[in-house]
């Protein structure tokens, strides 16, 4: 009965369509005459649906917009640091994400849902994960894989097992290693004086591979530069402070919880710290590992993606720890200088498993049952 009402609502989107029919026995409910609307004695038609009959008001697009707002400072900063190059990457990425979303939904005969802002967010996140020198065609390949392969072929928002923006980024990292990992530029005000360079993590890798050593002790100034974002890197990963501000905003707005980011970052810090203690000449300072690369954007904005991460607090803690572990393993022993994206995607893959084993215990379960379970 109720479902009928809801289905009809969805189709034609008007409130009063469902009531007369869902009542079934509408003998007492006469249809209102439109002409007589001004008269008081109209027998109204009523909407019938399951309880509750109130809603807090939050929507999917509302949540997506909050995440986009949280990314705005870091987005603006990337334009400030890398200039037009950054603006160009963002524009192409967001625009093409919207285009691919609309096209694929049209082709798959699904309602086009650009208004939920999820494609905008995916496009923005991908842009923030790209180097400012990315060629336009590469960005298109990235958004295509993010939106079409990463999301829509699984059924769209809510059904994708992997974080779409990360699918895009990882495809690009594997396919275009030169563009993705070797062509970095130093930031300068409005991108006026770009100089080709390597990322901090990249420099360490190079040094280790060539058998040499780098000075792994961070000077105070060096650390501050890393925090503020005065370094080479993807658009959005450079300013730890602004990412943190955005993340705290989302936690304050209750869009995300602290579990995943804290467990992710803490795991990276602790594990790299252990290696640093073992051999400080080979393994960098843990604080360096925490503030470089894509850890903050990954931990605060990618690993917290609802669809692809666990739903309970306990699950999120496990998920974050797993992300941290894989990140450290890849950074220290893998063939890529950065491992955050791969780590999160790997953990996305076992999210259903984590959810299964962190199923919340129902309130009031008996002790004996608990012991037996």
């Amino acid at each position: 009965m109720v479902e009928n009402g809801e289905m009809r609502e969805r189709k034609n989107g008007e409130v009063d369509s469902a009531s007369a029919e869902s009542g079934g026995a509408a003998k007492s409910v006469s249809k209102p005459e439109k002409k007589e609307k001004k008269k008081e004695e109209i027998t109204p038609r009523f909407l019938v649906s399951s309880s509750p009959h109130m809603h807090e008001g939050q929507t999917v697009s509302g949540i997506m917009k909050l995440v986009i707002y949280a990314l705005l400072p870091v987005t603006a900063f990337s334009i400030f640091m890398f200039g037009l190059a950054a603006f160009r990457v963002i524009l192409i990425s967001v625009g093409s994400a919207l285009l691919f979303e609309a096209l694929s939904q049209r082709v798959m005969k699904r309602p086009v849902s650009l208004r939920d802002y999820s494609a905008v967010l995916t496009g923005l996140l991908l842009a923030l994960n790209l180097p400012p020198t990315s060629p336009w065609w590469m960005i298109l390949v990235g958004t295509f894989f993010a939106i079409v392969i990463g999301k829509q072929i699984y059924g769209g928002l809510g059904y994708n097992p992997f974080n779409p923006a990360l699918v895009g980024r990882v495809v690009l990292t594997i396919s275009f290693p030169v563009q993705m990992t070797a062509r970095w530029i130093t930031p300068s005000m409005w991108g006026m004086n770009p100089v080709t360079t390597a990322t901090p993590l990249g420099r360490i890798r190079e040094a280790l591979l060539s058998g040499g050593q780098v000075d792994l002790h961070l000077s105070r100034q060096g650390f501050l530069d890393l925090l503020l974002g005065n370094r080479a890197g993807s658009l959005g990963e450079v300013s730890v402070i602004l990412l943190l501000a955005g993340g705290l905003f989302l936690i304050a707005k209750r869009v995300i919880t602290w579990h995943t980011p804290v467990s992710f970052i803490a795991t990276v810090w602790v594990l790299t710290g252990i290696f640093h203690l073992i051999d400080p000449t080979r393994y960098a300072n843990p604080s360096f590992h925490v503030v470089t690369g894509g850890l903050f954007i990954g931990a605060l904005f990618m690993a917290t993606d609802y669809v692809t991460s666990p739903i309970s607090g306990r699950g999120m803690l496990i998920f974050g720890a797993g992300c941290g572990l894989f990140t450290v393993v890849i950074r220290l022993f893998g063939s890529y200088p950065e491992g955050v994206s791969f780590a999160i995607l790997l953990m996305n893959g076992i999210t259903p498993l984590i959810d299964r084993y962190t199923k919340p215990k129902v309130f009031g379960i008996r002790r004996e049952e608990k012991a037996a379970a």
Partner: protein
Amino acid sequence: MPLRSFFGGVHPIYNKELASGAAVEEMPLPKRLVVHFTQNLGAPPEPLVKKGDAVKKGQVIAEARGFVSVPVHAPTSGMVKSVDVFPHPVGTDLPAAVIEPDGSDEWAAECNVERDSTGLDGEAIKQIVFEAGLVGMGGAAFPTHVKLSPPENKPIDLLIINGAECEPYLTADHRLMLERPAGIMEGAMLFARVLNVSETIVAIEKNKPESIEAMRAAAAEREGVRVEALDVVYPQGAEKQLIFTLTRRRVPAGGLPMDVGVLVQNVGTAYAAYEAVRFSRPLIERIVTVTGSGIKQPANLLTRIGTTFQDLITQCGGLVNDTGKVISGGPMMGVAQYSLDASVTKGTSGIVLLRRAEIPQFVSDACIRCGRCVRVCPMTLNPSALSIFIERMDFDQAAEYNANDCIECGCCAYVCPSRRPMVHHFRRAKAELRKAARKAG
């Protein structure tokens, strides 16, 4: 020591001020009463009247069938015009007697007689409560005498009188506590005598300070009775959550309050017990809050059972033009009505009328797994996973994820950004699981 509430819950806009200031007024006797025979959970009572019968006020018109069942009484004197099916506020059409009042409102012989209750023992009180047709008046309408008869291996040590009234909009319990605290207290003491408990707590949410004050004054002279002010969080008044807040005891999953030695009764039920025991008045009237932005003059009306929603609405000045939803009960757990011919039953605490613009539309978009439902579920279920299983009609999985423990409070749907009709799914799963259990024998 402040009481820490249960896990989860939500803070809806309560809108209680619409009706909380309106003193209880007597609803004039309508021209026609539609008295449903089914007004209790359990077995529906057996009708005793037919078309053309004359009835007196308080006369039994349907007798209990089995233990979990209570009689139904005529709310006034008059003539039975017909016995037929009519819209019941639960959402289906059920048999009811239409009584045309004769205007004299004349009591049946045995009713409305003052009685000295001091000498009555527990069994006698229980019998009177049963004969008066008492059911839980908070909404579930479970027969009161059954609740008062815990098996011997489940001793009760605490009686909770539930005046939390955590549903938004409703103010019937609030007005009752404010205006008739002594009666509630006396009724509570009758329950305490039946159960032989020495500790009674009257539980009221902090958003009703006047009620708290009135009940504290009424409880002042009584030994073993105290009034607790509770944090305002929905569903504070749900039995299991209320017990946890007050005692830290957890009613086991699938269990009842008596499993942890507690019995919970609504304030309205306590008052009805007082009326029944002291004055031999069966349960034929109750306070109904008529409220919401869809009604012209919100009110708390002392209403005869069987009064149609239409009559109540007319009494309150009528509907505003764009009223789009009529809810029997509160907006979180109440039942949307399709017809104003539905009539007040013993469990009807209020009628909430909402305008079209305020009605949320639940549309079944995909779950984005944001986890809000998990964080508000007071039963600590995983509503997200449950709703997905149920959409796939995987009811076995739903059972494994404890679908049967859902209390249908609506918190999950209230916060769902995808506006998924969560409670609807869970009701369906429970129905399917019941069906499967019956089949399995």
